[in-house]
């Protein structure tokens, strides 16, 4: 289980399109937005990988000037069997 909240700063004139794009993302909710383009967003999803991807995607939405994480909580539940892979280390003096 992963729960995150973010503050997204959109260019004020793009507020509605950014909001719409966010609403389309699974597990993502927009809780509120201000006139100055600031938005309170949460992600609630069992997969850590999904959350990480979602945050990157959010920052790339057209009209988003900055996206900042506020809170993140992560707990391994029996239901989340996200396979744990890691970066391979290559030991080779010639590569």
């Amino acid at each position, binding site marked *: *289980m992963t*729960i*995150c*909240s*973010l*503050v997204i*700063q959109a*260019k*004020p004139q793009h507020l509605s399109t950014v909001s719409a794009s966010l609403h389309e993302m699974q597990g993502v909710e927009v*809780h*509120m*937005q*201000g006139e*100055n*383009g*600031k*938005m*309170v*967003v*949460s992600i*609630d999803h069992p*997969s*850590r*990988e999904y*959350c*990480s*991807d979602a*945050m*990157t995607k959010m*920052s790339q939405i057209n009209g988003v*000037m*900055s*996206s*900042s*994480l*506020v*809170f*993140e*909580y*992560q*707990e391994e*539940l029996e239901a989340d069997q*996200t*396979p*744990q*892979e*890691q*970066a*391979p*280390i*290559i*030991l080779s*003096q010639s*590569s």
Partner: protein
Amino acid sequence: MKISRRDFIKSQAIAAAAATAGLTLPATQLAHAKEDDDAEVRWDKIPCRFCGTGCSVLAGTRKGRIVATQGDPDSDVNKGLNCIKGYFLSKIMYGRDRLTTPLLRKTDGKYDKEGEFEEVSWDEAFDIMAEKWKAALKEKGPSGVGMFGSGQWAIWDGYAASKFMKAGLRSNNLDPNARHCMASAVGAFMRGFGIDEPMGSYDDLEHADAFVLWGANMAEMHPILWSRLVDTRLTREGSEVHVLSTYTHRSFELADNGMIFEPQTDLMIANYIANYIIQNKAYDKKFLDDHVNIKKTVTDIGYGLRPEHPLEQKAKNSGKGKLSGMTFDEYAKAVSEYTLEYTSEHSKVPADKLERLAKLYADPNKKIMSLWTMGMNQHTRGVWMNGLVYNIHLLMGKIAEPGNSPFSLTGQPSACGTAREVGTFAHRLPADLVVKKPEHRAVAEKIWKLPADTINPKVGFHAVLMQRMLKDGKMNCYWQQCNNNMQAGPNINEEMLPGWRNPANFIAVSDPYPTISAISADLILPTAMWAEKEGAFGNAERRTQFWRQQVDAPGESKSDLWQIMEFSKRFTVEEAWGAELVAKMPEYKGKTLYQVLFKNGQVDKFPYKSGTVQDDDKNIYQNDESKHFGYYVQKGLFEEYRRFQTEGPKPGHDQAPFDTYHKVRGLRWPVVDGKETLWRYREGYDPFVKKLNPDVKKGDVYFYGKKDGKANLIFAPYEPPAETPNEEFDLWLCTGRVLEHWHTGSMTNRVPELHRAVPDALVYMNPSDARDRGLRNGAKVKIISPRGEITTRVNVRGRNKTPKGLVFVPFFDARRLVNKLILDATDPLSKEADYKKCVVKIVAA
């Protein structure tokens, strides 16, 4: 887990974000569900592990593990926000290949440099290390050993290392990886102002009218500061953002004036702006007369390469930095060469864009914050370039006041607090003192209770030179802590790897993970990570921040500090100093370095027993080092270190007492009577101004780092880079980071979802360059430089858009060691390597 707890956590998350955004939520969304007792999460403040911004984070610990983080709402730096990398703070300690025992290369039960790694005890690890170090010291003296530390060391890790090497082994072969990132900035601070570190603070982000980014991609590299800048830009009338770089990156999205310049011509652009200011008589004559000395610096200074290199042979004044006086008219004449036409032609920046930038600086009513990091520091003329930007601000008097701020951003979390302030460099001591000055050495010898002449007056080997000395067999023992130099250093294959594999040398690497450095070493020491020890960092705006130990280090891993102090027990003063020096203080006869350096009545002054470290809610925290050594180690070290600030000849570095920092969200030094300093050198903001210049006028500046209170405006011309694209190697290679990965990825690549998101370093290339070489997006290619080659894939559509003739490759990928390609040319004054300009060719693989 109960549904109610999930709702509780979610509502906590949303409430935190709403508070940070300054928005109010409807009351129903703030409902708190009842919490289980055993789900108790303990929240405590800790600085982020990553960049020099120095955000504060609340870490949530449950059952001995960090499970959650939250941007600290009480932090003046980030005010409740975190960047995407903050998401990984709670995960970087739990990679599956975390090191938990010392590992030594062995064959048939004995140390063998060609052997395989086997688990050994700490005792055995230090046995072999001490044997090798003593042999090297006996044969070559203090220059035979060296330590390479870090701008990510906690303050007392660096301080203990400095004592051990300089006071203990009398060796100045101690340099930090901050040499690779901030040395040029430091050089310019010392030449221009006589003291290190910015005169302004992050508050300038809210006071400035306009921002100029010189070769810094803040949107990805200092995202929280960027979000503050964005806020000002979007809310302040007439605010502008100008961005200069050698390729288009994320920060350009906000730019009102985006400029792509030919590598190295930033030197021309800065001089052009100075020229514009003078031609238009926009300069502040009174400010210049009262507060500035104009100087010029020796030119044709080479590239910090080996002395036999043709470029060094050709240079008339290789490595020289002497300053001499210049009149205003001479200076005006010198910059007059940099006309708009000349500068535009060579930099390839359209004239109207350059002029717009110059007009901005020349406008006396616009408060300007200039911001820069690696583009300007990792530069063969980095010290000069930093100086040229200070020149612009000094000409206009736009300095040391809210909003007018030439701000050198720091990359690492404690390059300031540890490397620079503690002075863990080959030429330095704490508080801006230097080994070459007898009166400075005397201060260190007094505070450290050493016999006269203990401190070595000869400057030691800096980062790049250390690797050359290992290769040449002139330095035989090397200990690397808290960095991954085998991946992050320049010219790996020609200089570094041969040195490490040289049979005459013994290489020890301390790290939490099996990085390329660790695997290339002879001995690996498993190291505790930041939240597994009580620590302190100092960020880019001079803010010192402390944290408590949140969780335990796994297995037998130990902190850098523990390792240094334990290792010091292996040497007696006779072995380290020789009989003659010991005879000067016979009470030290037969003592170990540990006893002299740490059990000296000062470092061991403060008692410790379990329960000593507590927060405001009376939660008790561990402190493994203090428990082990039997006294409050960190407090003793810090309080001794502070004495350099008040008993030394360089004023203005004062920090608060140890206990204060645990209570507050950091303080910006100098801290006087409990009050921090936001703007230095200006009366009314900086208490040292009046202290050192009682006649100063109200609100005026006094640059007390220099004897006459005046700053140096230093003219320097354009000089070409070490390598320029030619017929065979026809592309510029620039290297750097991406948002998701920190440096060499040794931590961030251990987070599975992050590794999967950005697994490979790609080469960002211009579409027509790709087309001309018959390459499509995603094509496999070889990038070849005169020094080596790597294989990767092309990206013509990515976040970084390069101009024709330049490619960009990030350095986080251990399978694509881009630093094999880099030339180890440095700024000859700062000794910092230029990672932004070398030459390559690209062919299909």
